[in-house]
């Protein structure tokens, strides 16, 4: 049982990196991306190929996995970021399918549907981090989750973060204010996919193998669900979303009723949780803090009206 719990925590960690990185794209910049699993796949395959074929160390490969995934992010971003709204989402959906399709068919590099088995274990100062000894790997994943969280929190509180939020709120107004929207959108895409690549690298190292079937459209959607459920534009929300989705999909096993119900029923339960949560909490569990305009708030007529009931008015808003 304790092994199963630590396995869950490791997966939660990897998914948390994914959801936080997607949150930067969807939550902060307001670009709906449906190909996050593709970046995860690129990262996972980069690590697997480099470690298996070129005997590279895990630490170099995770860095390269991030960089390659980031470049893929730019590759899809540069032509498509000029599209607006739903059209961008559809283009990324197509891109995700193409990546998976190429991985399955490029036998000489990826071994196609057979996947790449026997990815070596990561080592640190001569010590092997064995995925079967759960706590060792737990520390490794925990380190990267913390790193991702801190990097994103720092970035979103900087000029970059404010520019991204301005683009999300109103792209035309942001451009008028002198923000190069195309540049910032590309940066958001590249950063998000960089960390998805890192998560992919961890994924490959933890499973010690990669298979193309894992990285399908459904996985992209699952990550998106985490971001939306947790609340768009909050880092803690993304982490919470990852925790809830992983727990919800493993709920029957957690309470020990797997023997009684079928895997299909488990999936149905998961789908129900999604629908019900959306109906009762459409903007996610944690909602974004309203921007604080400081003393200038008093200048606007809305600010004077709100006055003492400010807190009350704030809760009414979605």
């Amino acid at each position, binding site marked *: 049982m304790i092994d199963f719990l630590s396995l869950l925590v490791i997966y939660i960690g990897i998914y948390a990196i994914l959801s936080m990185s997607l949150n930067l794209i969807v939550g902060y910049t307001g670009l709906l991306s449906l190909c996050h699993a593709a970046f995860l796949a690129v990262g996972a395959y980069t690590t697997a190929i480099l470690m298996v074929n070129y005997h590279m160390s895990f630490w170099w490969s995770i860095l390269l996995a991030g960089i390659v995934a980031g470049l893929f992010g730019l590759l899809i971003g540069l032509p498509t970021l000029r599209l607006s709204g739903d059209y961008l989402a559809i283009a990324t959906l197509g891109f995700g399918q193409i990546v998976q*399709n190429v991985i399955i068919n490029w036998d000489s590099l990826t071994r196609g549907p057979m996947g790449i088995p026997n990815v070596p274990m990561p080592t640190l100062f001569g010590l092997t981090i064995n995925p079967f000894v759960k706590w060792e790997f737990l520390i490794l994943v925990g380190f990267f989750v913390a790193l991702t969280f801190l990097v994103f929190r720092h970035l979103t509180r900087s000029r970059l973060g404010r520019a991204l939020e301005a683009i999300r709120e109103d792209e035309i107004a942001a451009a008028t204010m002198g923000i190069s929207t195309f540049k910032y959108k590309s940066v958001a895409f590249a950063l998000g996919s960089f960390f998805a690549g890192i998560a992919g690298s961890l994924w490959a190292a933890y499973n010690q193998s990669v298979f193309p079937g894992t990285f399908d459209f459904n996985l992209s959607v699952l990550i998106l669900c985490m971001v939306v459920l947790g609340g768009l534009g909050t880092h803690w929300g993304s982490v919470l979303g990852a925790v809830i989705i992983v727990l919800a999909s493993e709920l029957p096993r957690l309470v020990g009723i797997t023997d009684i119900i079928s895997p299909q029923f488990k999936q149905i339960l*998961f*789908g129900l949780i999604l629908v019900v949560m959306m109906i009762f909490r459409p903007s996610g569990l944690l909602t974004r803090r309203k921007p604080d305009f400081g003393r200038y708030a008093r200048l606007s007529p809305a600010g004077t009206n709100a006055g003492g009931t400010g807190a009350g008015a704030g809760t009414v808003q979605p």
Partner: protein
Amino acid sequence: MHIPLSELIQHFINGLTLGSIYALIALGYTMVYGILKFINFAHGDILTMGTYVGLMTYTGLIGTSTNPTWILLSFVVAMLVAMLASAILGVIIERVAYRPLRKAPRLAPLISAIGVSIILMNLAALIFGTKSRNFPYPFDNSTINWGAVTITPHEILILAVSLALMIVLKLFVDFSRMGKAMRATSLDQEVASLMGINVNFIISLTFFIGSALAAVAGVLVAMSYKVYPTMGGLAGLKAFIAAVVGGIGNISGAMIGGLLLGVLETFGVVVLGIPEGYKDTIAFGMLILVLLVKPSGIMGKSTREKV
């Protein structure tokens, strides 16, 4: 590489058949998008459910009978039952999972639709089993030779039924009162409701028609590709692409997009020599290309954002 004309015609017919299936499914996506501005991810799974209902009715009605007229008759009945069942399912889904979210943030209905899609797909597996089932032909499906070109009665059926349905739908939307109400609702829901249009009814009607068409496509395609719980997944995704390529929200666009996608997929493999494995890449590559050149699709009107 030289390819004889007869072979080209052959591939063109195969492509058109595949394309008209895509077009039938694409109509459901495009109609819903036109009115609610949201991608109904559960559409493909509604198709699966409808097809299963059709298959059950069909095999149930036939029993052990070998009378060809009775078999053909039960096929027609099964098709109608499948259409009705999936139409009702579509309306219920809209009522339960989408309507409460109409004023919610943009992503909420999308996630809800994904949830519904997961539920339906697994419900199908739970009720009907994961093994793929045969949908027997209701008629003798031996090929008809026509010079060097061969065509099966099944292909003729697909082409005839989808063409007829598309024409009926186009006439309905363009010339009937209800169709006019539909177009008004897609332009502006609020104003439409001020003009005395029951917007909720129109949205239900949209789901009703779209889901019924999906069931037709499902039953037609099942005869050559079998019935299985995930059959709606990739077909739905590709049909959605067809809808976007043609111009999402535009009914003629969905038809053109579907036919184009089917023909291109067939020709890409045979004529351009793209390996069979990359067939899906053709579809999605074409999608991205069209989006870059004309994001609003072939038939779509481009709108300028006014500040």
